[in-house]
């Protein structure tokens, strides 16, 4: 029988912070601008330009640190990490090595194996790099510095994880915390959350850590899970063959499901860190720390407790809604506007989740506002529209966030309350369907359903089905 191996995993998670501007200059961090339209001398490394720190970056970083049980480094500094690459315009990245802003924290994760702690070694602030686009026609690369200088925090875990399942639970936990703080939207696909996996294997029972590799370019939870499995197998194969695992950085190719070493001889991996003389130290006073603590949002556990007390909705709904900050915010805002927690919860739990699933979206991609959902609920309450029209309107709202009141008006979707017109239609329907009328009169209850459907169709759906039903029975009883 072969040896048993244990996988030891630590993560370096980069998160782009949701500031309006870059970490060291007043350029916008907005996504999607034309190349280099969000740049200035500072974030393109022009000679003579100087960095000035965005205060909000410190507040977000400290906020994440507090939420992950870290100690805050009250006196922290920025260091330069020197390496040449075209996406790095100064050829040094401003980061933190010697005194990172947060250290020694943990988060609790829950997997099938139960609840356990994953240690956080440190959290540091740094700047993001620009984007390289490969031009196959010209056999060159092109550099866009729009992302250069976007603020990042890097959360470095302890090597406390043992499986892909734990890694994903850890990432989901971090994502939820950061989203609750509003510090980032944490989208893996768009790169606002990125994870590098440090992995080693050792014989089960061994205390000593094996040689680790670092894996980059993991753009989805699925890729992470596959990369972990692939790397574990690769390392075990090496060990079984009596070979050594090399300490190196590898790039995961998710399409080919394998990884390649990334560095060449020209990458000495000697970053010559030293304190950046252009930036002064950050001192986080007790007072400032208290202010940040006081402005921390309500996190999930507290929120779940409060929902149970405040709203009469099922525990399962609470679990799902508080699982995403965006859902919880929508729920609370909409409820505040329309006063109907149960109905709001229903819309979120049924229609919203259905649409997200169908379109492969995440809760933070929800396209409608609380105002519009509240208005829609009110329209149904007041019987201005019926529930099937409401679903139609909701689909449009989810795509384009239209105002349901205006939309219903413009498209003429209001339920017809003109009894005369309805009675006239019913007469026509009864005249056109003598067989059904006879069936009903002979005791076939079902026939009424068909007649309601025909009437609704003739009314183009704009009638209250209960009212149609009552009027039909009245007419048939004559």
């Amino acid at each position: 029988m072969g040896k048993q191996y244990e996988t030891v995993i630590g993560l370096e998670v980069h998160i782009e912070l949701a500031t309006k501007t870059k970490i060291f200059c007043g350029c916008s961090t907005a996504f999607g601008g034309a190349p280099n339209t969000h740049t200035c001398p500072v974030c393109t490394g022009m000679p003579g330009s100087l960095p000035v720190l965005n205060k909000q970056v410190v507040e977000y970083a400290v906020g994440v640190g507090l939420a992950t049980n870290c100690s805050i480094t009250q006196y922290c500094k920025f260091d330069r990490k020197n390496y040449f690459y075209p996406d790095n315009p100064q050829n040094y990245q401003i980061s933190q090595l010697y005194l990172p802003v947060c250290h020694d924290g943990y988060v609790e994760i829950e997997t099938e194996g139960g609840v356990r702690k994953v240690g956080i070694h440190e959290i540091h602030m740094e700047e993001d790099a620009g984007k390289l686009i490969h031009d196959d026609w010209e056999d060159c690369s092109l550099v866009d510095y729009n992302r250069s200088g976007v603020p990042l925090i890097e959360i470095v875990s302890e090597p406390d994880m043992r499986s892909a399942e734990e890694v994903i639970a850890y990432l989901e936990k971090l994502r939820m915390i950061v989203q609750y703080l509003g510090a980032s939207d944490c989208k893996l696909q768009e790169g606002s959350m990125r994870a590098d996996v440090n992995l080693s294997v050792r014989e089960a029972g061994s205390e000593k850590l094996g040689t680790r590799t670092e894996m980059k370019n993991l753009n989805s939870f699925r890729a992470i899970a596959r990369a972990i499995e692939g790397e574990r197998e690769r390392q075990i194969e090496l060990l079984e063959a009596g070979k050594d695992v090399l300490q190196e950085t590898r790039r995961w190719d998710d399409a080919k499901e394998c990884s390649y070493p990334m560095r060449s001889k020209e990458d000495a991996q000697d970053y010559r860190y030293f304190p950046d003389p252009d930036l002064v130290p950050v001192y986080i006073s007790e007072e400032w720390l208290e202010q940040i603590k006081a402005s921390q949002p309500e996190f999930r556990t507290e929120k779940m407790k409060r929902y149970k007390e405040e709203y009469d909705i099922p525990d399962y709904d609470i679990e799902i809604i508080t699982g995403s900050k965006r859902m919880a915010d929508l729920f609370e805002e909409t409820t505040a506007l329309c006063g109907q927690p149960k109905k709001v919860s229903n819309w979120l739990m049924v229609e919203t989740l259905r649409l997200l699933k169908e379109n492969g979206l995440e809760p933070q991609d929800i396209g409608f506002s609380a105002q519009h959902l509240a208005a829609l609920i009110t329209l149904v309450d007041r019987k201005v529209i019926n529930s099937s029209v409401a679903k139609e309107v909701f689909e449009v709202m989810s795509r384009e966030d239209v105002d349901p009141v205006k939309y219903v008006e413009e498209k003429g979707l209001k339920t017809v309350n003109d009894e005369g017109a309805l009675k006239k239609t019913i007469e026509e329907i009864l005249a056109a369907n003598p067989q059904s009328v006879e069936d009903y009169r002979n005791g076939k209850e079902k026939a009424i359903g068909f007649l309601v459907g025909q009437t609704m169709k003739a009314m183009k759906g704009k009638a209250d089905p209960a009212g149609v039903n009552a009027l039909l029975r009245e007419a048939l009883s004559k």
Partner: protein
Amino acid sequence: MSILDDTAVELSEKIKKGEIKVREAVEAVFAVIDQKEALLNCYVTLEKEKALKRAEEVQAGIDAGELTGPLAGVPFAIKDNLCTEGTLTTCSSKILENFVPTYSAEAVINLEKAGAVIIGKTNMDEFAMGSTTETSYYGVTRNPRNTDHVPGGSSGGSAAAVAAGECFAALGSDTGGSIRQPASYCGVVGMKPTYGTVSRYGLIAYGSSLDQIGPLTKDVRDLATVLETIASYDAKDSTSMKRDTDFTSALVEDVAGMRIGIPRDYFGEGLDPEVKQAVLSAAEVLKAKGAVVEEFDLSLVEYAIPTYYTIAAAEASSNLERFDGVKYGYRTKGVEDLHAMYKKTRSEGFGPEVKRRIMLGSFVLSSGYYDAYYLKALRVKALIKKAFDDAFSKYDMILGPVAPTTAPKLGESLSDPLKMYLGDIYTISVNLAGLPALSVPCGVDQKGLPIGVQLIGDCFQEKKLIRAAYTYECAVKGD
């Protein structure tokens, strides 16, 4: 008497009185340039047309009563490591041979707001690394006082231009003596202000923790006036300081009771006797005016140079990484591999002295050496600062030489870099400790080469230095 004999402040007064037009002042300067520049080579770039056009704008501003400041209409030269929007800025390096900034240094903006007319960019040691202006890619600058000699450096072009009348005043930068030493060699006044006094935004960095911009002028009044104009708190420079900047208020002829310390360590072996004599006579003049002069031991002087070269080289190695042929400046041709492109561009674009310092700086920061070299130097820096703190608890200022000798002959210095570095011994610790210091002419040697005396003050005590230098200058003029 020619207007070229006027100081900057005198010239501006005449312009404001209508005795002379800005255009005439600019033309007068260019007449000198036409005559001397071919030999002296003070400038990398001259902008005659722009300057004449600008002269008309400034004249209109003065005539309209909008420009009333003491430097309105004055032709200025700017060291070529200060970015000037629309004007070539090379750092005297091949690697920036075609770099035209789209922004100006804050100090330059401040000067322009005051109505100064910029006529060109002055030659310097490449990236301010050197003490002779001989490491420039654009040829050496000659000392106007004796053209067989160097003007000093790295702000040699600025000092020579002021001394030759090729401008009325100039800006330089000082990382280890680069304003004071050429001022001394060329017989003009120059000052390195307290770190943080003048914004570094737009100054192409050499050693970021040491660099300061400062004036090179004909006299102390001009010095105080230019400094007052360029000093500002700048939110774009995180190391910029909010402080008093009313430097002209210190133009007072009075040093009574001022305590001046003369460090014995500055007058030992290696100091030229003629320089020593001139500097000590300057001290006597101040003493005669009522200053209390005494000798003391500063200590640690011999450790300043190794400390400086470690820190400056380390910072420079990082600051100069951005010159890689990607975003601006020179790029080598015909290389298809990225790293080969970097290496070839930089090897062709930088001169030997710059490469030497980048190599040293990369080494002292590299894995395994950081603590032994870089951190050690930062610790010694703290000790040096402490030694100055002790001195300033007893003295208002320190008086000493600027350089051990007068200007050396062209070609004498570069052969032995270490020896050249030793010439910075009296200026370098000032940058390490962030202090203000100025150089004011105090005589000439037998060959007629100028000698400067250095006054060093505690942080933010520029006004004491200006008062003492002004008093000295008045006393000497009166003789």
